[in-house]
């Protein structure tokens, strides 16, 4: 029985040897780059001692996780991480879908192409550059907003109440172009006969959007959201650390898990804790994706990720 199975296995390999050989470089790369270091996850449960190495360090149970959950800041950090991600996912999707539909409805070809080129520009630059630009706008003395629009001195970098909006705006600004193009690409992939049928039925533009375009977008929206849900415990370090200029007064609204871990790491060099944070983020992401995917597959089997 075992023998037979083994023969089957090698037989299968041999029969498709060309295809497997093609995959070999990729498999090797993933093994090296992604799987070989994965033993490092054990650091989450160890007190890492540099002189003893990963294997030699002593186990310390869950005490690395205390750093994340045992402090008075824990609730604030988790609230920020999840809250921002939730807002980003919802607003980001709505906004990007709206832009994609507008792009699709515009008839003139040349302007349409030009719009596509320009809205993607923010996506192409790094957060460091974005933080420079943000400062050029928000600086109290020199900023464009205070100097040329409001004509008064608003102290942006010291007033926490503005930052949930600023961060959301920056995130939307940077990502909407890319997401819109993805949705737009899906929209123009929708079978045109569906639109023709709708026109024949006497549907106006809104009805067409509602009954043809949006349903056509559904699979893409689900996929994109599923992928985003897997990362709700992560945050863009540059957005939350560099864009607010690491200003102390804003910590209550800008500290996310990644920022907190980074700050702890530069003071304490504690590898175990950052491993614990990474482990927590991965496991939560994994569970969330599986759950979300399960729910999706119950409701709509075709659109599940796997």
């Amino acid at each position, binding site marked *: 029985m075992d023998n037979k199975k083994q023969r089957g296995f090698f037989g299968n390999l041999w029969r498709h040897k060309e295809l497997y050989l093609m995959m070999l470089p990729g498999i090797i*790369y993933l093994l090296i780059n992604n799987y070989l270091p994965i033993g490092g996850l054990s650091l989450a449960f160890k007190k890492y001692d540099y002189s*003893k190495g990963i294997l030699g360090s002593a186990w310390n149970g869950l005490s690395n996780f205390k750093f994340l959950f045992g402090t008075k800041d824990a609730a604030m950090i988790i609230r920020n991480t999840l809250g921002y991600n939730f807002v980003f996912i919802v607003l980001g999707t709505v906004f990007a879908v709206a832009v994609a539909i507008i792009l699709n409805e515009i008839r003139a070809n040349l302007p349409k192409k030009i719009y596509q080129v320009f809205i993607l520009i923010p996506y192409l630059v790094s957060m460091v550059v974005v933080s420079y630009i943000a400062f050029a706008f928000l600086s109290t003395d020199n900023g464009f907003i205070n100097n040329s629009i409001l004509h008064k001195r608003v102290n942006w970098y010291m007033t926490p109440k503005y930052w949930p909006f600023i961060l959301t705006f920056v995130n939307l600004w940077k990502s909407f172009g890319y997401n819109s193009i993805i949705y737009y690409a899906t929209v123009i992939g929708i079978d045109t006969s569906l639109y023709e049928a709708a026109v024949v039925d006497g549907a106006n533009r809104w009805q067409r959007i509602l009954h043809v375009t949006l349903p056509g977008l559904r699979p893409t929206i689900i996929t994109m959201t599923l992928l985003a849900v897997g990362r709700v415990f992560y945050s863009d370090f540059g957005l939350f650390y560099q864009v607010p200029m690491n200003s102390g*007064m804003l910590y209550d609204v800008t500290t996310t898990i990644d920022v907190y871990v980074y700050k702890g790491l530069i003071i304490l060099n504690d590898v175990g804790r950052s491993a614990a944070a990474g482990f927590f983020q991965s496991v939560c992401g994994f569970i969330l994706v599986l759950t979300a995917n399960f729910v999706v597959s119950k409701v709509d089997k075709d659109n599940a990720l796997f």
Partner: protein
Amino acid sequence: MRKKITATLLCGAMALGLLSGCGGAKDTGASDAGNAAAQTQEGETQTAAANTGDMVTVSLYIPTLAPYTDEAIMEVQDAVNAHLAENYGIQTKLVYIEIGNFDQSINLAMTTDELDVTCYFPENTPLATYVNNGQLLDITDRFNNASDELKTTFTEAEIKASSVDGRMYGLVRKYQYGGYEVAVMNRDIVEELGIDPASVTDMESLGEALYQVHEAHPDIYALVPQSTNEMSWIQPWVKRVGLTSFAYVNDLDSTEIQSVFETDAFREFCGYTNQWYQDGLIMQDAISNTQEGTSMVTAGAAFATLHNGDIDPLEELYPNTVVSGMLIEPQSAPSDLGNLQYGISANSAHPDESFTLLSALYTDAELHTLLSFGIEGKHYVINEDGRADYPEGMTAETEPYGGFAATAAYPNYLLNPVKATAAVDDYQAAVDEWSTRVKMPEVFGFYFDTSEYGDFVTAYKNLEEKYYEPLRTGSVALDDVLPDIKSELEAIGFYEVAEKMQAELDAWLAQ
């Protein structure tokens, strides 16, 4: 078995590299990828003769405080190696790392045996943390068996500053301790308004000058932070205690441990800055500023900035400025001691050779000068007064080996020839003279072991970062936030730690 797998994977990876046309990279990469012996490449062995081949190579990590070129580093490394081969029978590999990346880089490098001797900043990451993490080698026995020359280099307080629990883990940088505080002011405005720099001797008189300037030139900043969002680099108005980041005493004579926010000196300072901030004297952007105070003062965009000074004169550094009278007389904070140290990685494969190098760095003047100033005649020259200067036609910007401008990063400043710009004739004498002038706080030399308080140190750091600079720049009024601060201090357990520390300090003082 595992090795075999790794080797197979490696071959695969290399074959892949070749396959995919990484041909251009072969010359730098291929030799490194497989062969550990190839690590002694890069010209280390070029000058020293064949016998250097079997000498141990010890790496030395130094932060860059000024620009260095790869070529200059190589030249100096060759010269240093020739000297080391002749006198100590070892070789070194100089690794310069951008200062902003330094902490992270050495932490990573300390996980492997690539790092032997390194500079580190205990003010950034407490020494106890390095020790607790098993990052630094215990050098107590090696130090006790070392030459008298090395042992007499350090005072008892200095040895203590590099020890945890009575064991030594590094050697402190030799430098003068402490400094004075002045205001650096724009010369044009001072002359235009007839301000007498010497009359500015405290915050009150500085304020008078600032109001005068603000009235005459409302469009420029009267006062800007010294650098980015830091009102002043050193903290001359309060004293930090025992190489910790969280405990302060109010003044030189005080022995009562407090949180910085509750000291009278801090309250007084913030009282001034907050008033000035509200009256528009201080840059409104202070908290998100990304520029240097002095460059704004020199450019005429600001009138004054606070600045620290020590044995080097300030006017030399900044054109178009005048320096005020001393706001704070020369004095030292306990944390000035040992805030930059050199030590050996616990993972070093060659601890003995590493210690040889470390000890030579503190005692061998020729080696230290070579390492910090570079090659004589090329990176610096000795002029007719016998002082070190830039070679003809070179400046801090164009000189390829930055060590000359950045001597503070090296272990023993005092071994070097005196620079042409120095106000003194002999560093050792100047430091001795400085030591008689500088006022030492009562608690100088007291050390508190923070190794058990890792979480507290992090929590405190977050708290301080949140309030400290906004208060010092005057952007926020102390009274508005003090109740919050107190309850947060309470929540992270500050007062218990302070109490424990106070008990230890009292015992130490009684001795």
